[in-house]
């Protein structure tokens, strides 16, 4: 008698635990994202940004490759666990090519009152008739300098209208005065230096990134950049996030993604200034970064995913995302007066960069799919060979143009802004 009582009790409690686990699984939304991979950002996403969301959501940041592979293999296997996918514009093409993303026209229709930027909504269609992701948040790359550096600005130069040659003079006069190379770039293994060459240097000097990759203008651009590099801190090849060397005083002037500069601006707003990227012969090349939210086909919990999208695009949550993790709203929203000073400085620099009459925005690569990494490699290798290894510019451009051409032909990707539209794969002239 006693034995069977225990048996029943054991069985019952097992059942209880099991049903609890099952209930949790069905109720919880799995939100996988290529954004907020640093542990602090992920924690702020979970504990602050998603705090008021009605429902259970499990936020899992992943690197780009596992993100893509996971969703693709889940959709292929017909057992989808990922309920909501958050990524950059450029993370989605491989998923779209495999038909792994659900159409979210209905979600956008529900969010009419959000006043999304139309440019971003169009980007979210990815060149199709349907909405494939909902704009989530935006960022870009800007420059930050220590106030100590301002006294060395060349005569007549202003940080807000700086040209590339003025930047070189500025860094040179700092080096003359201090004996140290105080300009820095994120050229480390996880740094975003290739975005500088693709979205800032090339467009500013050639109004292109692909078609005029090996043009004469590009050659003289690299020669100029090589002479600027003489004043760059050589530890740049190990910098991934420029906020750290800025805060430690290893560099005084830096270019990087706004999210990778925010600690400097937030911790010591009085010691730093934020300003737009420099201007080249064709204008101020810069790269807006757009992140979006998409729903995988066969999402186990579509209603919860839609609710999460609705939540994340609310004005107050957009502001919370900005304050916590440094990504800016994609909807029209008035920034509150009590924003931290560092964030306000970043917001001002971004607005100046985007709104001036020399603005030359260029997109992150479009349509390269899984080859996006190798596209970046062309720019990384070109930089390493010309700048770090001092190889002949013309020879490097000619040989890397071959790699670039191969990627364009294999992916058949047409040109994207600022390169002029092409009918076939984007040509490398």
């Amino acid at each position, binding site marked *: 008698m006693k034995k069977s009582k225990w048996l029943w009790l054991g069985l019952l409690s097992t059942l209880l635990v099991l049903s609890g686990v099952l209930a949790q699984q069905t109720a919880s939304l799995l939100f996988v994202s290529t954004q907020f991979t640093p542990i602090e950002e992920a924690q702020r996403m979970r504990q602050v940004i998603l705090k008021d969301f009605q429902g259970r959501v499990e936020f899992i940041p992943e690197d780009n490759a596992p993100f893509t592979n996971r969703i693709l293999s889940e959709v292929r296997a017909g057992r989808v666990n990922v309920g909501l996918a958050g990524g950059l514009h450029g993370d989605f093409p491989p998923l779209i090519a495999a038909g792994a993303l659900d159409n979210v026209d209905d979600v956008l229709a529900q969010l009419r009152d959000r006043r999304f930027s139309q440019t971003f909504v169009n980007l979210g269609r990815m060149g199709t008739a349907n909405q494939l992701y909902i704009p989530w948040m935006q960022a870009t790359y800007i420059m930050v300098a220590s106030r100590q550096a301002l006294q060395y600005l060349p005569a007549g130069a202003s940080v807000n209208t700086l040209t590339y040659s003025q930047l070189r003079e500025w860094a040179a006069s700092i080096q003359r005065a201090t004996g140290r190379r105080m300009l820095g770039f994120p050229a480390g*293994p996880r740094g975003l230096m290739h975005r500088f060459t693709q979205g800032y240097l090339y467009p500013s000097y050639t109004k292109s990134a692909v078609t005029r990759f090996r043009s004469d203008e590009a050659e003289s651009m690299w020669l100029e950049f090589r002479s600027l590099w003489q004043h760059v*801190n050589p530890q740049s090849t190990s910098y991934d996030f420029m906020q750290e060397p800025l805060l430690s005083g290893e560099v005084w002037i830096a270019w990087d993604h706004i999210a990778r500069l925010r600690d400097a601006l937030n911790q010591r707003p009085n010691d730093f200034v934020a300003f737009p990227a420099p201007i080249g012969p064709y204008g101020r090349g810069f790269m807006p970064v757009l992140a979006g939210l998409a729903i995988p086909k066969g999402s186990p919990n579509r209603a919860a995913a839609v609710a999460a999208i609705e939540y994340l695009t609310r004005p107050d949550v957009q502001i919370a995302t900005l304050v916590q993790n440094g990504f800016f709203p994609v909807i029209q929203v008035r920034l509150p007066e009590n924003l931290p000073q560092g964030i306000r400085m970043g917001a001002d620099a971004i607005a100046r960069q985007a709104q001036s009459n020399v603005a030359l925005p260029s997109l992150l690569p479009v349509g390269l799919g899984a*080859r996006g*990494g*190798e596209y*970046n490699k062309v720019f990384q290798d070109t930089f390493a060979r010309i700048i770090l290894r001092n190889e002949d510019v013309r020879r490097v451009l000619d040989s890397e143009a071959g790699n670039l051409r191969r990627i364009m032909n294999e992916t058949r990707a047409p040109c994207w802004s600022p390169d002029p539209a092409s009918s076939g794969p984007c040509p490398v002239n």
Partner: protein
Amino acid sequence: MRSERYIPYVLILPSVLFLLLLFAWPLVEALLLSVRGSGGGWTLENFQRMAADLYFRDALKYTLLLTVVIVPLQVVMALGMALLLGSISKGRDLFLYVWTIPLGISDLAAGIVWLAIFTERGYLNSFLQGIGVIQQPQLWLSYETPMMIFVAVVAAEVWRATAIVFVILVAGLQLIPKEYSEAAEVFGATPWQRFRKVTLPLLMPSLQVALILRTILALEVFAVVVVLGGRNLPVLAGEAYFWYNTYQNPGVAAAYAVIILGISVVATLLYLRLLRSRQDGVA
């Protein structure tokens, strides 16, 4: 009686299955990945792209160089430490524990510790500035000073991974009966002779294990190098990582993995042949 013959096989079966599932299978998959093209046919394209890559020669050079420098250094140091420990009687455990502390530290953490020492605003520069040797912070870990990055990596690796060799050798030394050494002493052997003729030959199996283990680990060196040198000191395992993660080309990444595997196998066979112990020879 009969069933007992099968018991050992039954008992090792789970571990064999485990190894087949989690090592042999991925190994075969990686091999296949490296020789398959995007279309699915057999190809050497991945290996050609690897060989033509900007970082391949440097990665191969630095990986082999690091192995050749680090492994002998560690074995000599560990052997010295193990012998010293053998002649300590009081506080022996304390030394043992202190020397094995680095075993508990992940290689990434070890890299970060050494980065904190060598970086521009790091401990080394603060110390040198403090005692007045240098006026301005020196750059130790930049692409302009690859030799210094190399030295920093060697220092970090020796600090981090000598303990594993040490532990294996201590265990090996404890297996050697004291009587042999005492007998040799009775016949008038000097300490050096006792070490050469008695201890070292009897330690050979442990040395072999330590060398094989350390060499394979040295060929896979990655986290410490990435932290200290970034891409300035390319190594094979790092390139495999970059090709898989950053360039998203699993084929070329697999080609790098196959190269590492090939070198590891060759090194292991070499050790097995060159350091054949006395017992093996008799048997």
